[in-house]
């Protein structure tokens, strides 16, 4: 199926700012789904609140635009009810790891088969540039006019510690790698987390003097490196991208089915 058939074309052009990376994530998702050959009727996309969450409205799936931080909780209700469906849960960094932090770690722990995509632009964009738990120490934001003293989470470490059985990081710059990683995440039987570093030139970029949208794209290239690269050994400040965790553990819906069988036998 051509990529355009997966989107609700009548809602384009999208609401995202020029230079925003979210559209690239949308594109990556469409390519991944196309490669897997999933049917639109078999996909449920659940999102929260924020710039990232608007992605659901553009996709021609069953789309559930929920409340801030709670996308994973809604998604678990859908998945436990219909384990045969493919669940995609795009979230922003504040959405997933600030207000939704508790749901995030518990979803990782349960290992329920769905794909969480953390679109990390290190800022609250929809509300106009406040610092998020991913902004990092020393950054500037409208709510950190003197400098941000909050340390940041590392999405990959957090998801790994939480028990996610697939953890990866990609960027909006590496557009060839992004669909491949998303495809592998969606195919993975269990809870998969993909952090996608995406630029927000409008707020994060302006506040932190990161230059133009093109400069910010360039940064995604120069500040990241494949996992275990020689460059990382020489320059530990580089952020690694690729697949960090991929392991097999009992999947939650399948485990629950065993509970049902046991209960029905009266044991």
């Amino acid at each position, binding site marked *: 199926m051509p990529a355009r058939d997966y989107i609700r074309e009548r809602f384009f052009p999208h609401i995202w700012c020029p230079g925003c990376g979210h559209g690239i994530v949308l594109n990556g998702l469409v390519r991944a789904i196309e490669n897997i050959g999933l049917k639109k009727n078999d996909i449920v996309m659940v999102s929260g609140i924020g710039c990232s969450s608007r992605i659901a409205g553009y996709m021609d799936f069953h789309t559930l*635009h929920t*409340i801030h931080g709670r996308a994973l909780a809604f998604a678990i209700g859908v998945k436990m009810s219909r384990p045969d469906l493919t669940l995609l849960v795009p979230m922003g960094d504040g959405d997933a790891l600030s207000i939704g932090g508790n749901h995030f770690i518990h979803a990782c722990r349960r290992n329920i088969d769905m794909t969480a995509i953390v679109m990390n632009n290190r800022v609250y964009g929809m509300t106009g540039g406040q610092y998020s738990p991913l902004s990092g120490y020393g950054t500037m934001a409208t709510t950190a006019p003197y400098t941000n003293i909050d340390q940041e989470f590392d999405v990959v470490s957090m998801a790994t510690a939480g028990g996610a059985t697939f953890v990866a990081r990609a960027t909006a710059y590496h557009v060839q790698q992004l669909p491949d990683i998303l495809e592998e995440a969606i195919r993975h039987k269990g809870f998969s987390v993909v952090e996608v570093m995406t630029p927000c030139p409008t707020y994060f970029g302006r506040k932190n003097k990161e230059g133009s949208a093109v400069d910010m794209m360039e940064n995604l290239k120069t500040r990241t490196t494949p996992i275990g690269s020689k460059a990382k050994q020489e320059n530990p400040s580089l952020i690694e991208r690729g697949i960090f965790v991929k392991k097999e553990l009992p999947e939650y819906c399948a485990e629950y089915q065993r509970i049902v069988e046991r209960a029905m036998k009266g044991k």
Partner: protein
Amino acid sequence: MGGELRFVQGNEACVEAALYAGLDFFAGYPITPSTEIAELMAERLPRKGGTFLQMEDEIASICAIIGASLTGRKVMTATSGPGFSLMQEGLGYAIMAEIPCVIVDVQRGGPSTGLPTKVSQGDVNQARWGVHGDHAIVALTASNHQDIFSITVDAFNFSETYRTPVILLFDEVMAHMRERLEVPEPGEIPLVERLKTSVKEGVDYHPYLQREDGRLPMSDFGGVHRYNVTGLFHDMWGFPSENPKVVHELLRHLVDKIDNHVDKLTRYREYFVEDAEMLLISYGSSARSALHMVTDRRQHGESVGLLELQTLWPFPSALVREKTRNARYVVVVEMNMGQVLQSVKAAVERPEQVFLANRVDGVLITPADIRDILRLIQGKGV
């Protein structure tokens, strides 16, 4: 009724009724005094192929049941005051997106952690206005286990009929007290099943386009129709809209679909109301004490009566006005600072004749408590 005779807690009666009504998905988080509902669901639901989930908190619990309801399940969660507070945003979402679900709030003393193991009826107005923004809500209660059973089935039926969340406001005494319950035979109480769309695959389906009778046929998430669900104001396709006409019409619809059906949503019981000079109005466990007192005083020749409300929201104002017309005094018996009292005063012709008989110390109000207050009102002294 020819059903099985049981000796159960109120929480158990609620579970039996929910299963009777066709519940097949429950998500919850432990909290006193509602926990037995979750425990029983964990045991019973898998036996019928249903789903029980213990979530990480009450916020996740209500979100999970909303997600499951969208796929066509009958769903419920159960909690108490602090958890009910956490659920308010999810509750508002279910109102806005018109997703059927049932939320049990077993009331305990509040605010805050309050009195976790003691009785209260302090969440009545939270049930009405805990959610931000204009909206309508259905909240039901009962004062004995047989009625807990039937009102719980009503809750599921109302939630499906009006595509709305329904709140069951029980209290600690009702939840933990044991008494007899006759479980009705299957089919004895009619059940309302979800109204599904008849629109065929490939034909445009409008999830928020009302039929002539105002109802919205649903298509299960994961089915043949793909659509959008959002907590934003939305058009008939479910897509966000800020069009003033769309916004106005949706808000009116959300309020009117409940407020225009007060008669159908009203459940109540009445005892000696006709000629009552002194009419008590009560609900939940306090209605038990009120009924005891009324029955006792009638034997002494006093003209007292009781109107027991089972539907608290939408408030049955017309019913209360009609039933109180001939009473000299109206006394609202409840375990809070006068939450239903406010609604009664607003409903009656002579609000200055409405008094409050309450207890707010975590102890069940007794018939003697009520009698003492009545004597004060009548100027007889205690």
